[in-house]
């Protein structure tokens, strides 16, 4: 069974930062399956850059836990995919190595930050891919590129080897052309890892089941309100209608704490990022610093040139928010807001089994459309609540608007990843 596959795709969309022309594989559940890996997941002997100049040339001496699991099931790691630098973005335009283009329309972005993984799957270059989702980074590009993508419950997949952007929010997760592929890949990567003490012993052994009769679906008003494109909202409402036809019932609900979700999200991720990224100082990674300068001057020079604009912006924001006297004002408040969001979800999940809505408020942006950071941050409003609460959320294609894919997002109770997969699968089976 073990062997080698030849991987030599015509990468028109700049989906890959590195490819392995001869990719070895073993036997197992994924024997010979080509899997692309987001470039923030450490792969032994394969350059891992997070799409940043500062990690150019960094070749990890170890595999991320999930890579070990993929290899153990026979998968062929065929390449590392493009992304927003360190995961910071919603378009994959913030890559130091050029943007990835959306295979559905090359004038548009694939979404981000796992844009390369989504584009590689959407273009048929690979069957499945790994991404990471900090505030929507799997679901957004899945939605924009018309594929499926799951952000697992926090703790179900080991983060060991995932180059941290925001530890308390992010999870590695699967992207695939179909929900079945997503489910299969999730089955391989989930489970406890003693190297990640925030991971839990909750393996995923599940075959998607399309029977959703009796399922109660919460429809939060905030997911169809201000800022959400009406055409997108209509497509999603129609899709939810199909779920009702399959025997589910809908219940209107509200997540009032969503008002603070974006603020809580951006405070948390910038604070954690400012600390996570401090180690990239030019001494061990990135362009060698000028040794004639004092070490802190050299650090300053390396860090002000080798990081991109968005990364520097978020490092500065996070550094400020954690400064003496501000911790209570920002980080601590953001954590309190997260508790409120969790409480809102817990309350809603007493009455419903899943929550459904659009994944993104719009279809994929045109390249360079989101030039000011604030409007880009606003695009995350529908995806960040799941990260703040730690709950599972999947995006499944549910139709088109202006010829571009629209994603249906299903969020579930903590650790009920199987259920959100089932709902997405039921929809997928119904429309195909």
């Amino acid at each position, binding site marked *: 069974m073990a062997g080698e596959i030849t991987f030599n795709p015509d990468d028109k969309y700049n989906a890959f930062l590195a490819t392995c022309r001869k990719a070895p594989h073993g036997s197992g559940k994924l024997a010979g399956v080509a899997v692309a890996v987001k470039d923030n997941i450490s792969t032994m002997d394969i350059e891992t850059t997070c799409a940043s100049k500062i990690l150019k040339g960094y070749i990890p001496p170890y595999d991320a836990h999930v890579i070990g699991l993929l290899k153990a099931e026979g998968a062929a790691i065929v390449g590392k995919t493009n992304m927003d630098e360190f995961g910071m973005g919603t378009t994959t335009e913030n890559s130091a190595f050029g943007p990835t283009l959306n295979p559905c329309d090359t004038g548009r972005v694939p979404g981000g930050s796992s844009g390369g993984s989504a584009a590689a799957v959407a273009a048929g270059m690979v069957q499945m891919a790994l991404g990471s989702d900090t505030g929507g980074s799997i679901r957004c590009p899945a939605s924009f590129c018309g594929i499926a993508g799951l952000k697992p419950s926090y703790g179900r997949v080991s983060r060991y080897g995932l180059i941290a952007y925001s530890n*308390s929010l992010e999870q590695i997760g699967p992207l695939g052309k179909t929900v079945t592929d997503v489910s299969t890949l999730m089955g391989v990567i989930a489970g406890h890892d003693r190297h*990640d*003490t*925030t991971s839990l012993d909750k393996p995923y052994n599940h075959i998607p089941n399309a029977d959703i009769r009796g399922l109660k679906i919460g429809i939060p008003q905030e997911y169809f309100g201000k800022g959400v494109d009406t055409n997108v909202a209509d497509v999603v409402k129609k899709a939810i209608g199909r779920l009702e036809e399959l025997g589910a019932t809908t219940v209107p609900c509200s997540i009032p704490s969503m008002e603070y979700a974006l603020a809580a999200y951006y405070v948390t991720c910038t604070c*954690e990022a400012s600390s996570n990224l401090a*180690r990239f100082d030019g001494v061990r990674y990135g362009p060698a610093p000028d*040794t004639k300068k004092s070490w802190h001057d050299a650090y300053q020079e390396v860090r002000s040139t080798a990081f991109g604009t968005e990364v520097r912006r978020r490092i500065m924001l996070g550094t400020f928010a954690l400064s003496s006297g501000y911790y209570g004002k920002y980080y601590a408040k953001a954590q309190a807001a997260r508790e409120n969001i969790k409480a809102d979800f817990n309350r809603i999940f007493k009455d419903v089994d899943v929550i459904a809505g659009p994944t993104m408020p719009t279809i994929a942006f045109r390249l360079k459309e989101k030039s000011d950071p604030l409007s880009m941050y606003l695009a995350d409003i529908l995806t960040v609540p799941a990260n703040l609460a730690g709950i599972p959320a999947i995006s499944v294609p549910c139709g088109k608007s202006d010829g571009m894919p629209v994603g249906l997002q299903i969020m579930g109770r903590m650790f009920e990843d199987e259920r959100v997969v089932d709902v997405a699968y039921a929809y997928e089976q119904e429309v195909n």
Partner: protein
Amino acid sequence: MVDAEDQVIVGLEVHCQLDTKSKLFCGCSTDYRSDGPNTHVCPICLGLPGAMPALNKRAIEYAMKVAKALNCEILEESEFSRKNYFYPDLDKAYQITQYDKPLAEGGYVEIESDEGGERKIRLTRIHVEEDPGRLVHMGNVERGKYSLVDYNRAGIPLIEIVSEPDMRSPKEARKFLNKLRATLEYLNVFDSEKEGSIRVDANISIKGNERVEVKNITSYKGVEKALTFEVTRQKNLIRRGQKIERETRHYLEARGVTQAGRSKEQENDYRYFPEPDLRPLRVKSWLDGIVLPELPDARRERFIVQYGCSLNHARTLTGELKLANFFEKVVASDKSGLSPLASTWIADTLIGELNYRDMSLDKVEPAAITGLVLLLKAGTITDKSGIEVLRVLLDQRFKNESAETADAIVKRLNLAKTAGDSGAITMAIEEAINENPKALDDYRSGKAGALNFLVGQVMKKTRGKADPAELNRMLTEALKNKEA
């Protein structure tokens, strides 16, 4: 106690390496000192991108042992935080430590106060953290060509023990540190002999003035020296009417002085926040499983009762685990018979001789000292000969030469007491008196010093073998006869 006007106020922050087999957050061995740079490292302690900490439970157990022994309260929930700062030896550019939820709070250490009696030095807290790596400067820090980074030390578990400002002199600070060391050694969680295993920051002020932080003290003696220097410096400033600035100073071990460090403007803002890669610690229930061994205070009391040691001897002997064990081995064969002599000889004489040679107790086998004490107890040799035997014995072991027993040394050097062999002593007395007629005259004219002088002369001639009491008696007799 009422503080005097110029009362010294000292508080210490003591960092001790816990003597676990592996590092705090990875499986790397802590036994790095004799190996080359960057040989005890892995993705975790190198802070490679994507690596995550996994807590070593043994280190927490060790820290809890210390907390229990020092009467601290283990918090229901504690947590790790990141202390963010840039420095080339800090692999992740943050140190995982504990900030607002330490492992333990409160507690105290009892020391002998300068005024005598025991005094409680209160503790503020104990927390667990990781050691950073180390820089090796080629040349000196300012003008060296370059520096090299060694991450072998990165991730070694440390506890930081923070005291209240309860010490009143540099000497008390030294005693506090010694007591802490002894306690940690008794708990078998700390090896004080490993280079750099303890580091101290001290806060010191003169009552009513700003306090100064002295950083970078790396030896036990250094604490007393650095603080003594500071007391003098600060008192001099006050005497000259100058104001003490609140500042951080560095102790320069080689010169025994403190030097102003970075100014306040440049001080780091550590931007603490909870470490998101580790769960909060809820370990209070582990306390039930922690059984403490006999600690220094209990052992001291036992030495007084069981061996009849004086308080001071018992304090000295139990002040170091190794010494206490050594003592008990020396007297093992005859517990009550040997102990009074042995405690004096070990606590006073042996320690002094070892310090003089800067020699480790490890080089001396307890049986050698048992042999010596037996000879002394039997009256075979005089105290003076005893010291001579001890010196020979130590010199041999220090130089790793043939290690003779006390018996053998006594025989070889013919040091056995000449009691009974009064002929030799009588002769020596005769000679001494004849050679020193002035002393005889002085004796006759009632000068007290003359007798002592003659005793010394006779001792010299008999090479200390004469029993002092016997000699005194015989010499007085002889002088009386001369008078007649």
